[in-house]
């Protein structure tokens, strides 16, 4: 237990010491997205009856920022440790693979929640952001960042170099996030794209969070939550299995 707590604390300290890049920068950039998109699209698009586009956009942006940072936290920490070689100190220790997994994932979740709250807080200064079901919102940020934190561990372990990690991020994480309906409702898409969107786990996370904020969503939050929990469970299981087998870290 002390082992897990120490590694978790170390991971928190790691991003906290560079919070300018790890917390402030992502909050700032999503605010820029928000200002630009709302300025351009506010008057042209209305997704739900009586919901302004900016209001629609905010939960999507909160979630996008949270997910990206959850992923970035575990993946960058792992690949840095791997490349600089200091992962050896964790591998030499009696920490179990479960403890290692939980420490990295929890740190990811904490960072995701901080930036998520940061973006939400920042929007409150400018807009009248609603919060219909805060518990639902928190639940989706939590499960979503759990999923992305796990994916980050997988990517960090799998990549041997920084550009492989970048590829993972640019070709898998980024498209899945952008196509998850952060900027639009999938109901506005042609039928085929609507079906494809339903295969994207990130869609359920974003839609679920939107329910938390707005009280309306494309699909039932219970269904979304089930899908997200299922995916998080499966990816966590895979991550644990990789850690247990020592895939790419114990030769």
């Amino acid at each position, binding site marked *: *237990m002390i082992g897990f707590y*120490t590694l978790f604390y170390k991971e928190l*300290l790691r991003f906290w010491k560079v919070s300018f890049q790890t917390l402030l920068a992502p909050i700032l950039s999503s605010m820029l997205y928000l200002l630009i998109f709302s300025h351009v699209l506010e008057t042209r698009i209305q997704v739900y009856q009586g919901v302004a586009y900016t209001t629609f956009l905010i939960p999507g942006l909160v979630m996008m920022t949270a997910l990206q940072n959850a992923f970035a936290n575990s993946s960058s920490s792992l690949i840095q440790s791997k490349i600089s070689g200091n992962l050896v*100190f964790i591998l030499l*220790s*009696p920490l179990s693979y479960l403890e290692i997994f939980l420490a990295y994932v929890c740190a990811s979740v904490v960072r995701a929640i901080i930036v998520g709250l940061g973006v939400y807080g920042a929007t409150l200064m400018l807009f009248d952001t609603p919060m219909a079901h805060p518990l639902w919102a928190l639940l989706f940020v939590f499960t979503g960042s759990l999923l992305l934190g796990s994916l980050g561990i997988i990517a960090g372990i799998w990549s041997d170099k920084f550009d492989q990690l970048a590829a993972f991020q640019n070709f898998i994480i980024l498209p899945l996030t952008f196509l998850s309906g952060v900027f639009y409702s999938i109901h506005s898409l042609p039928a085929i794209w609507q079906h494809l969107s339903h295969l994207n786990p990130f869609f359920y996370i974003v839609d679920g969070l939107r329910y938390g904020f707005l009280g309306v969503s494309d699909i039932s939050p219970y269904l979304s939550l089930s899908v997200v929990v299922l995916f998080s469970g499966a990816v966590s299981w895979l991550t644990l299995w990789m850690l247990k087998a020592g895939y790419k870290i*114990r*030769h």
Partner: protein
Amino acid sequence: MAAAIEIQKLSKRYGDLLALDNIQLTIDTGEFFALLGPNGAGKTTLISILAGLTIASSGQAKIMGHDVVADYGQSRRKLGVVPQELVYDPFFTVRELLVIQSGYYGIRKNDAWIDEILYRLDLTRKADTNMRALSGGMKRRVLVAQALVHKPPVIILDEPTAGVDVELRQALWQFIKQLNRDGHTIVLTTHYLEEAEALCNRVAMLKQGKIVVLDSIRNLIKSIQGLTVQMRLSCEKLPAALQSWPTSSSEGFHYFKMENYPQIELLLAMLRQENIQVLEMQLQQPDLEEVFVKIMGAQSLETP
């Protein structure tokens, strides 16, 4: 009581390369043991398997009776490893790192021991310095410190003195000797054979993944018969009378091999007879290096 380290039929294969070939080795508690061998012999691979960093292809290993795979929690608690590579975490200061490392082993309040290690490794003044700002030798001392935070009964040091200055090397060995006297089992690898000779009681020599020698230093040195006399003479070429003496020469020195001390007189008499003067002379006692060179073959000895 279980042996400190017990290795049975251990092999490790990397593709076509057999890095470790059926290693069989038991190291008792309290030993000061040297693992020697040329570059690429498999020393680090063997240590990595004991530490759980590498998974053996076959065979098994135990630390203080705990299997390194099946019972890794216990075996790692009993083991402290100083890795060969100079690795560090640039995010933290020396003290932060040691506190964190203690935590990994489940130890929460470790300040007294951390202060002691810092003092013994002459790092006290650098305790609150970021790792990035340390010199190479200091980083290596931190590696040693990290391996000791949990007071492991078995300590393995993979070339701990590479890049460390003379003064600290002395201090480091004093500290390690103290730990050994306190009952810790010490295993080290080094390319400085005089270090191994001065410190250890037993050695294993590895060559291409196999243990080729396993014996006490005393026995090994005894196994080398005779001594060598190194001389600079007033003539370059040896006269015919001395041609039958087992010799070699390099850099202006002649090396005369002999079985015992009385033969020195014989040699000197022959030189006098030939009217050759001795300009310089030195006796060379057999040492571990000689044993090593003999076993490895002069070709495979690489400089550290």
